[in-house]
């Protein structure tokens, strides 16, 4: 249930930033043409709409298996990246609204259980490992 609620929140955030992207791309030009008329850009917009529609449909299935839910959220994360790209470098500044899509992905990463991750480190160390310091 909480995964479905998260899906609803994430698609809502995604939709509102897609609207903002459409507005921005209609006014920005490259080589004299509005960016929104470029095929790559138009295709990216359409792909995100498809993912929003798919996610809206799957949110109505409360008993979906955990693996399906996680895969659905990974797709929302990718759709979020597609929208993020539409804002270019200006979306990489911390106070830009599109950063909420990064938070959306981070929330799903931290919140959704991943029962398939059962292995531990080979030496059995628990707690906070120091693997980020080496591992070459």
């Amino acid at each position, binding site marked *: 249930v909480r995964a479905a609620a998260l899906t609803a929140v994430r698609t809502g955030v995604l939709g509102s930033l897609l609207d903002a992207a459409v507005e921005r791309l209609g006014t920005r030009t*490259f080589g004299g043409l509005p960016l929104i008329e*470029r095929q790559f850009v138009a295709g990216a917009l359409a792909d995100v709409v498809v993912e929003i529609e798919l996610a809206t449909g799957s949110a109505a299935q409360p008993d979906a298996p955990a693996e399906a839910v996680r895969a659905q959220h990974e797709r929302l994360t990718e759709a979020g990246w597609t929208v993020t790209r539409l804002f270019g470098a200006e979306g*990489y500044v*911390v106070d830009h609204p599109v950063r909420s899509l990064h938070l959306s992905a981070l929330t799903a*990463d931290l919140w959704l259980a*991943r029962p398939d991750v059962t292995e531990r*480190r080979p030496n059995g160390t628990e707690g906070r490992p120091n*693997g980020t310091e*080496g591992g070459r």
Partner: protein
Amino acid sequence: VTVVELDERLRALRGAAAETAGELRAHASALDAEPYEMKQHLGVAAFDLIRRCTTPPRFGDPLRLGRFSYAAGSSLDTLVWMVELARGDAGMVLAAPGPSLAGILVDQLGDERQQEFFHRAVADGTTWAFFAVTEPGRGSDASAMESALTAEAPGLYRLNGTKKYIGNGARGAVGVVFARTGGGPLSIRAALVEAAAPGFRARELETAGLRGAALGEIALADVPVPEERLLAGHLPPTRRGLWGAVRVFNTVRPQVAALAVGTGLACLDLVRTERPNAPGLEAVAARLEACRALTLEAGAALDRDRDDGLRSSAAKIAAVAAAREAGRWAVRSLGPAAQVDHPLLEKWLRDVSAFEFMEGTSDIQRLNVARSVTRGRYRTGGQP
């Protein structure tokens, strides 16, 4: 397509870079937290390696390993060390003081006095340089730039305009700024500018990741520029302006790919340590190594022909995607607490997004590749 075989000389360079990468990784989190607090990082061995490998021999002391030496100018050399150092931390690579992008341009377009002025200015190991092309609202469309160099008196120009998303923008002491001297496509020039000049104002931009790059915005109001600071006056008009910027971008594009490959390898290292049997590990590793090979091949192609950017574009598309995928795979492999337990993974996931926006987005690179195909410069299965 030939595959670059690393000879003894390049293997030595790769090994030396790999040895210093662990130290970069140890500094990465502190840099991410406070990218302008650089004093604590200036002594890392990799910064010395980078400075030696990016300074022309007549202005510095090239890196020497045994009987081999490595001076500035070889794209292949640069990409070999850059992948390994970025495997330590790409943010730290971009935080290194020294010539950086501006140096590539000055070495190609500057006359002897301009080169000497620039390299002396950044030689002390505590000075950064900016390379200012991009303007707010213009992104990849450099030909639409509005910054202007206006002749005020014989031998003196005034520079006006705004540059945004400039690496080292707010901490560089010297650098190059592109601006128009007129309306035509050939009237864009690059000027050597010092941050201490009157009318030069810079502010920091707080970015979501890759914070070691220290992006800034530069506002220029009637900055005086003596004519001898305009680059390429000794070259034909067609070689003075955007041509140089395009060459720098061609050179830097595979470097962004190298930074992306290194960051992907860092994520792979983490999973290999924490969960050596994680499903997909071999596929992720193979993909990143394929991207490294393509990146090195792109560098070798540029060393043969500075305008041969096809593989640079292909390498950037592939490497940026592979690095993101490696980061996402690491998150899936290590579980919900991964980004809490491993702050560097959380950081690298923010960092990899930056590569998309540097030196042309993936869509721009796709257009470059497609143009090479439609103009007959590329045939599948054989040499272009």
